[in-house]
């Protein structure tokens, strides 16, 4: 059954000391889908993403990615991960950064294409430390997708970037999904949610609701996604302490 889903998360729990970051989360993401992981800061979005790419091990439950139980090093080659902060080498140029991440994934041939996709090819010689936040974010995205991963995990990719760039980013995301890439995008910005095919609402380490934006609206009883989310959140008990 795992084969039909790019990501299959079953009853996953994770604690940091007494703090329950995730509490029995179950969700599935189909291949070629853009899945939005929504929730306020500290809801557990980053923890879930880090578990999907094998950086954290679950205390309970299972994470299956592309048919393999995680953590599994062999699967990592097919995953692209864009971290929350633009994690780049500031002393290297844009091209050198992308080149490095291409090399460790064994995909040196994709550098030019990745740079063109994020429209940084003309700036490829610029040293990252001299770039603005938005350009860094674009470079970071290029590093995450240079090896043409089957699954792209984007942790708040549009935080701190201007609306124009945000529109562009979503344009890239749609194009990649159309080519069969599965994307999981976390965000706490509700107007981005409408651009996803399906949404998972996370709060207090739990999945509150799941479905298409229209489903969420119906469940929350509001045409406004943000109000729907708040209504769903209010109906749920607080985080359980373990």
């Amino acid at each position, binding site marked *: 059954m795992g084969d039909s889903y790019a990501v299959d998360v079953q009853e996953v729990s994770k604690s940091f000391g007494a703090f329950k970051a995730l509490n029995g989360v179950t969700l599935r993401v189909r291949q070629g889908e853009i899945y939005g992981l929504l929730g306020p800061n500290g809801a557990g979005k980053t923890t879930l993403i880090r578990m999907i790419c094998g950086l954290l091990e679950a205390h309970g439950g299972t994470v299956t990615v592309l048919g393999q139980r995680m953590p599994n090093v062999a699967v*990592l080659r097919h995953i692209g991960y864009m*971290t929350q902060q633009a994690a780049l080498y500031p002393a290297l140029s844009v091209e050198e950064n992308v080149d490095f991440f291409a090399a460790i994934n064994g995909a040196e041939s994709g550098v030019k294409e990745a740079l063109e996709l994020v429209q940084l090819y003309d700036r490829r010689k610029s040293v990252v430390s001299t770039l603005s936040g938005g350009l860094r974010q674009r470079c970071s995205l290029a590093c995450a997708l240079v090896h043409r991963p089957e699954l792209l995990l984007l942790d708040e990719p549009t935080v701190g970037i201007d609306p124009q760039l945000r529109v562009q980013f979503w344009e890239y995301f749609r194009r990649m999904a159309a080519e069969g890439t599965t994307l999981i995008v976390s965000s706490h910005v509700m107007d981005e949610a409408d651009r996803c095919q399906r949404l998972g609402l996370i709060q207090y380490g739990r999945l509150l609701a799941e479905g298409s934006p229209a489903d969420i609206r119906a469940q929350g009883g509001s045409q406004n996604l943000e109000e729907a989310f708040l209504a769903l959140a209010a109906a749920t008990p607080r985080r359980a302490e373990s």
Partner: protein
Amino acid sequence: MSGHRIRAITRRLLQGFRRDRRTLALLFVAPIVILGLLGYLMRGSSSSPSVGIANQDSGPLGAVVAKTLRHSSHITTSDINASDGDPKLRDGSLVAYVVLPSDFSSQAQAGTVAPEVHLEGSQPGEDAPVLQALQQAMTSLASQVAGRNVSFQPQVKYLYGGANYDTLDYFGAAFVGLVVFFLVFVITIVSFLNERSQGTLERLMASPLRRGEIVLGYMLGFTVIALVQAAEVLIFSLAILRIHNQGNVLLIFGMEALMAIAAVNLGIFLSMFARSEFQAVQFIPLVVVPQILLSGIIFPVSTEPSALQYLSNVLPLTYAVNGMRDIMVKDADLTWSSLQLDAAVVAGFCVVLIAAGTATLRRRLA
């Protein structure tokens, strides 16, 4: 100027320290450790230099000198045959030996004595007490030979080094390696920490890279820089400072390279235990300074209090320094078992640290 605003800054600083227990501990623990170690090293020295006496004098005065030397507080003496002297200097059981010639008594009667003084010579600090003790013995000899002034003209012979061999030569051999070790350590620990704080390590962990590949890649990268630095230091020391060197330059370079690799791996390993560059710098007084004090660079390990000798003997830097000195001062080559041991210990240390670094990398991200 506003006292209020100044106080705000002062308070902010002190509040930060209150949270950073580790820095606070370091501020108050490190000086005690370092000064305590230094005091123990300098006051608690366990042994005085071992000096052999070969008394060949047919007359009575040689025995008088030998007896005075035996009672000297500067040195520890033993009676030897002159022919055993050089082998004993070489194996380290003596730092010097004195030969009182068969005509010593008649020399004294004639007013000028010329005993042979053979010094091991690689540690200038140990020569002084020997010559001082001998000088005192000669002074007491003069009082025995009534009515004469006896002039003392020792014939000093060096097994290693020589009369021009000075303190810089002694320290130089060790410092050529130490400079590389220290700087490479600092550069590695800070840049590995950057990898963590700028988030790129997380990215590497989510890539197919294996932990061992990261550690080895780092090691090779910094080793390239370290080797260039090592070459520069070596050329400057030999060509400009003209530090005494008997040995093979390639061997020195090889030993420097080993030390650099050890420093890179120590840096990677310790970076796992620091959360900020600030904390990384704190490893310098805790890790580097005691090693410098205990590795025999300044105080020969053989003169340390015995408790500290055990500690010195497990520090890799001790072997590295010893190896550098053996090569530069004594022209050691790889057939020397002591140099084989030194190189093997430093290399073994590198291997252990590569494994430790790899293991720690896994634990910190799990």
